[in-house]
């Protein structure tokens, strides 16, 4: 068997895959924007042991962290469209579910996943801030809200920063399965280009290189971010 790596095709696929970067990043960004504050709220409720809500959230986090992303995609992609269609019919809206960009499902699925992952990080980070910090801040005259916002949160962020960064990076990698929902992210675009000439190996090498680059750049950005946050860390 002689295999020739098709370089001209690889170049075309590379250009194609680059166009998918904004899509991949938008899924990551949406999941971050939804999951970061949600994760904080979940962590707060669970730490305060708010009755009922805290138990429900424990089950939610266990579910979101206990199932693989692919399985969640398969589940929600078969469950959500009929449910939404039903809701639209009930509400009498003039909107077809088939006009909905499947990226919305990706936002929902990764939002769920990231909120659970971030909540665990928030939980240990908030736990890591000595409770004396809050008490001291209140005793010198800050309102409880101020004390939380200006004393506890920055320190918690500093503690959680490495974990937040690494879980966001692994989420970036995790989004490469959204091509299953016909979303044209990095993987989706390159796969589409490959399908025409059955040049899958070239396509995957290209995707691999694109991810390596994006991930590498993001890792450096996160490193800078971490260094900025670390100054809040109580020594």
């Amino acid at each position, binding site marked *: *068997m002689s295999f020739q790596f098709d370089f001209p095709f690889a170049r075309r696929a590379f250009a194609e895959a680059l166009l998918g970067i904004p899509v991949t990043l938008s899924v990551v960004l949406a999941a971050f924007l939804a999951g970061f504050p949600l994760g904080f709220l979940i962590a707060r409720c669970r730490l305060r042991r708010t009755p009922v809500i805290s138990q429900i959230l424990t089950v939610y986090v266990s579910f979101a962290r206990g199932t693989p992303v*692919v*399985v969640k995609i398969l589940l929600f992609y078969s*469950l959500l469209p009929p449910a939404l269609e039903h809701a639209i019919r009930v509400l009498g809206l003039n909107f077809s579910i088939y006009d909905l960009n499947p990226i919305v499902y990706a936002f929902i699925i990764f939002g769920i996943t990231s909120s659970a992952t971030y909540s665990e990080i928030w939980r240990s980070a908030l736990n890591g801030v000595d409770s004396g910090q809050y008490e001291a801040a209140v005793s010198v005259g800050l309102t409880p809200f101020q004390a939380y916002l200006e004393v506890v949160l920055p320190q918690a962020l500093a503690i959680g920063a490495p974990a937040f960064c690494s879980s966001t990076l692994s989420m970036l*990698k*995790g989004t490469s399965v959204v091509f299953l929902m016909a979303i044209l992210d990095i*993987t989706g675009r390159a796969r589409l280009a490959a399908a025409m000439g059955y040049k899958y190996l070239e396509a995957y090498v290209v995707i691999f290189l694109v991810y390596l680059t994006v991930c590498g750049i993001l890792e450096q950005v996160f490193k800078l971010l971490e260094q900025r946050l670390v100054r809040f860390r109580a020594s």
Partner: protein
Amino acid sequence: MEYMLSVFVKLLPRIPVTLMLTGFSFALGFVFAAGIAFLKLRGNLPLRILAGAFITIIRCTPPVILFFLVFFGLPVLLSVFGVAVKSTDSNLSAVIAMTLMASGIMAEMLRAAFLSVDGGQYEAAVSVGLTPCAALLSVVFPQAFFIALPNLGNMIIALLHESSLAYLIGAIDVVGRAAILTSNSYGLKAASIYTVVTLIYWGLTVLLSWIVDVLVLRTGRANTLVTAGS
């Protein structure tokens, strides 16, 4: 509900496949990870760089892509060495891909654990007459292992989850069988079938993390005894 039960019965025989993919890649990954961690700690400069590059590359590659790269790339790689294979076995490709991933990630865990064992432990062991090799094997490694245990537990759960990607290269694990069942029902039963799949993975994860927690608690106690006694 009855239908979901019948789906569960059909998927049940596929759980061992999922667990085997997970278990094999974890065991193999652990061995390779130990080697890579050793190279990064004690190797000469080129080897250290090589080990570091491997870890970085693996950490930056999405699992799906690793699966496909191994699946499509392995025959090509083998043909370069003069071994002709017609096609790649799905399960084998999946285990190789997951082993690569596990070894890259676990190498960092093991390295960190090794470094966190107090250097005095090794020196004390050598000073009471143990050979350097024996000191590492019977004093440093056990402690490092206990330190790494919670992370290794997370790793095996992560591998369980990644193994669900194996169906994309044709493995017939739980998800693979579910996908076949779904297409047999022309997609009509997709929601119930994948609900069952979700419950299976959720159950397996809860079970595994419970086992890990028990292990960590037990060995954690042993570990504190070791530390307190030393």
